[in-house]
């Protein structure tokens, strides 16, 4: 029916909305049928838990895979932090986990670089892209817009399984004899292209590239699904301007992903060509291991452009979902509407647009034309404006609220704090003139860990604590949540705040040891303190793991709307049935933020509740 209409129709508005309606109806009809048929066919273990097409199950799969990858990634950082603080000392812990690569428990330089590289890759892509976006886009999009499931459950399933395969390949690469990829998570050639330059650029790098290529495909399939679902499957009354900010964040994130991830794939493909088929896209004039290589005419700078065309938007792919989750959690727990809803949407869009034209600020001193540097400084500093708007809006939302200090709320407030602290130093790094001296120092490491690493992780935790009842029908333990937050919050600042200053002292990142430079001897104490906090922070995540996995089985049974939230997901039954709502899909009558609205008895009004006579929609 839909296709017929499209064939005849031209893009008039009426036509579009009728297509739209038809699509929703046909989808609902289809889903209704699925639900009917469910009474006859019982799902098997395989269709329910493994090759599931249900968005709620897929989101749990993303989350748990992400958590496992996160454990690996964080643990790696703890190991290499030990090497930085106590260079070339022997640890039985290092010997136990890194085994044959080590001599008597001392980490060797190649292994150090491998750990740094894989830590970055895992955290950025596997935890904060797939683990965060994958989990919450899948869980929340159908629930918050009022749809039975994703537009294509099948593609959704494929998306998860490709992510799973890419995770497995990445983990396998850790066990390659010459070690995993070690050229930094940015894998700049020629280092990443030449096994003569570093052993990890052999088989380890090949597996890295294969894994990432599959990852990009997974991400694209997922993103397209999110976009289509949000645009086409909103329930009756759910105008774009009534969407919760989580939806806006996930929607725009998916759009950025679709725009920029393919470029990473092409960058990786050309690198594969250079490595395996002798082309010279990125390589030229190379003399290594006593011989001149045949490569001629390529440029590593091309790779940097292609890489950062994804790499920078990637920051926002990681961050925007976290900010979306935070908006929702802060509004709910402040019992106040999010301040400046439209300004928030505007900022998300502005950030998304600007994020695609600032990639050059990673390359001010790459050798590209200095004039380009000027342009990128300009666009980069502009991005501070929408970011500032977001920060101020969060703070104003708290003002005169009635703050409910649930663990999710604590993490959201923590996010706003680290987002500001980390974001502000971006003003230094985005300024090409200042970047010269802090580029690739620990100042950068501190900056991006706070603004996108810690912030996004906080957003992820906020989301997990907040929507755990929706995922498992049980509540997480509050007390453990509090312990988890406070130790993490103290440790995170303990690690990354002093780190700015050793960067300002000129300490380059990715140094296996700083002992070769007496110049940096006075930084060693600070480095020890940082490592202590890192070990504390890493270890404290065990509290979360315990809480998460034990609560799945032993948590207190959840009520339907534990946080007294207004959005649609809290109108579904606690058990989380296939198709989400047992009867008809609810219709939406108002925006998502009617908290403490005058004229209502309760301090929240569900989105499904019709406007009273004479009541104005905000």
């Amino acid at each position, binding site marked *: 029916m839909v296709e017929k209409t499209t064939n005849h129709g031209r893009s008039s508005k009426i036509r579009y909305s009728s297509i739209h309606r038809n699509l929703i109806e046909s989808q609902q009809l289809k889903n209704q049928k699925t639900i009917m048929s469910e009474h006859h066919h019982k799902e098997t273990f395989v269709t329910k838990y493994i090759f599931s097409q249900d968005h709620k199950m897929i989101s749990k799969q993303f989350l748990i895979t992400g958590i496992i990858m996160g454990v690996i990634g964080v643990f790696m950082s703890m190991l290499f932090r030990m090497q930085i603080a106590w260079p070339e000392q022997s640890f039985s812990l290092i010997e*136990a986990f890194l085994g044959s690569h080590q001599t008597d428990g001392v980490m060797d330089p190649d292994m150090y670089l491998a750990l740094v590289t894989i830590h970055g890759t895992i955290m950025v892509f596997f935890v904060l892209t797939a683990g965060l976006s994958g989990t919450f886009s899948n869980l929340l999009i159908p629930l918050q817009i009022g749809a039975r499931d994703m537009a294509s459950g099948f593609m959704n399933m494929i998306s998860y399984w490709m992510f799973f395969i890419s995770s497995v390949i990445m983990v396998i690469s850790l066990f390659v004899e010459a070690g995993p990829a070690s050229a930094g998570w940015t894998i*700049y050639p020629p280092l990443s292209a030449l096994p003569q330059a570093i052993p990890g650029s052999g088989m380890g790098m090949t597996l890295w590239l294969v894994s990432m290529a599959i990852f990009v495909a997974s991400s694209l399939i997922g993103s397209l699904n999110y976009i289509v679902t949000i645009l086409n499957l909103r329930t009756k009354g759910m105008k774009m301007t009534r969407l919760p900010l989580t939806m806006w964040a996930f929607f725009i994130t998916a759009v950025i992903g679709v725009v920029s991830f393919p470029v990473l794939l092409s960058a990786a493909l050309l690198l594969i060509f250079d490595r395996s088929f002798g082309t010279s896209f990125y390589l030229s004039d190379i003399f290594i291991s006593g011989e001149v290589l045949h490569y001629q005419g390529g440029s590593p700078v091309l790779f940097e452009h292609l890489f950062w065309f994804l790499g920078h938007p990637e920051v926002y792919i990681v961050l925007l979902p976290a900010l979306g989750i935070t908006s929702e959690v802060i509004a709910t727990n402040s019992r*106040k509407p999010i301040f400046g*809803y439209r300004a928030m949407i505007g900022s998300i869009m502005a950030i998304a647009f600007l994020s695609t034209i600032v990639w050059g600020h990673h390359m001010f001193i790459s050798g590209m034309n200095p004039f380009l540097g000027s342009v990128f400084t300009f666009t980069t500093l502009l991005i501070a404006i929408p970011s500032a708007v977001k920060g101020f809006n969060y703070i104003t939302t708290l003002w005169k609220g009635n703050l409910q200090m649930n663990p999710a709320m604590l993490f959201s407030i923590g996010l706003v704090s680290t987002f500001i602290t980390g974001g502000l130093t971006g003003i230094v790094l985005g300024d090409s003139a200042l970047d010269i001296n802090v580029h690739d120092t620990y100042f950068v490491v501190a900056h991006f860990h706070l603004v996108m690493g810690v912030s996004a992780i906080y957003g992820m935790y906020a989301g997990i604590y907040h929507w755990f009842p929706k995922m498992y029908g049980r509540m997480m333990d509050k007390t453990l949540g509090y312990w988890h937050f406070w130790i993490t919050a103290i440790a995170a600042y303990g690690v990354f705040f002093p780190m700015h200053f050793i960067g300002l002292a000129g300490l380059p990142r990715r140094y296996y040891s700083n002992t070769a430079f007496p110049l940096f001897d006075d930084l060693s104490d600070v480095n020890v303190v940082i490592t202590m906090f890192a070990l504390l922070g890493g270890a404290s995540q065990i509290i979360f793991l*315990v809480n998460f996995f034990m609560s799945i089985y032993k*948590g207190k049974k959840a009520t339907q709307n534990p946080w007294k939230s207004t959005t649609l997901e809290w109108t579904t039954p606690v058990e989380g049935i296939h198709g989400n709502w047992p009867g008809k899909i609810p219709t939406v009558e108002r925006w998502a933020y009617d908290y403490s609205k005058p004229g209502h008895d309760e301090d929240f009004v569900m989105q499904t509740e019709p406007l009273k006579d004479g009541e104005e929609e905000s």
Partner: protein
Amino acid sequence: MLALFYIFIAVAVALGIWQVNKLTSYRKTILKNDKNEDVVAIAKSEENPIATEKDNDIHGKFFFVFLIGFYILMGYCLFFLNDIMLPESASVEGENDDNLFLISFVLIGIVQFATQGLLFYFSFKYRGINNRKALFYADSHKLELIWTTIPTIVLTGLIGYGLYTWNDIMDLSTAENPIVIEVYAQQFNWQARYAGADNTLGRGNVRNIKGINTIGVDMTDVNGADDVPVRELHLPKGRKIVFKFRSQDVLHSAYMPHFRAQMNCVPGMVTEFGFTPKFTTEEMRMQEETVIKVNGINKIRKAKGEDPYVFDYLLLCNKICGASHYNMQMKIVVEEEAAFYSWLKKQPTMAEVVK
């Protein structure tokens, strides 16, 4: 096997945390039995999984304490870590850089101080109380306008000054009679080549690398004969230096933090950067900031029984380049022009080296 042991310990600790946490929810309570006698019982108090008024109070106050702790951390880092910072810029071009940095940092500091204060203070002040209703305050165009325009104006200023500084540093076309030096990177050391009497570097390419001609100077190029290859960089004070960077294998980055100078070395292309040294090595050693920093370092070194450290300018590699990336350095000596030229004269030229 040891790894399994560690994992086992972690799991045991994890389960312990859960159990201890559960135990704390059991409370001693006094109940009445049928005979109306007091009976002490251990009962599980039903914990509410959602924040109560008490939780709001506790964690609201924690946020306030956290804020104070954070202020102390900021203050400590700003004032006490000052001794480990880099000393004043040793290049003329770096002065603007230092200035711009100071302005940016003061601005950032003020905003950081204010916004973190508001954020945590509000978290404390408006911690939830039962039966209180929050203020329904969804929008204010006036406020939005204020905090859109103020950052815009401030940033416009910063961008303007930043771009001026950037152009001042990067524009080498106006340099009068500069000294041209090639800095050559390879895994894992630095070499350099002075342009010689004609102040023009001879062509270089990795395909010319042969024996002692380790940086691939084209010996058929007449400009190359008088070039001077060296392993230690000497710079004259007060003269504009134009560096040309090359790399023979992977990306490196020539980082000279004291001069606020850095540029990547890219195989297959020549990149450039320039600055004018302001203080000789000797003068820099006498600078107050340097003296404080060096004393601090030597105190640590003495405690470890290591030789005392004397300040020197350095060229470091600051782009991951392989196993010994962490130890790829070259000493830089800045001296008066006369001393520089007499040093340079003593170094053999390419023609003399290669023959």
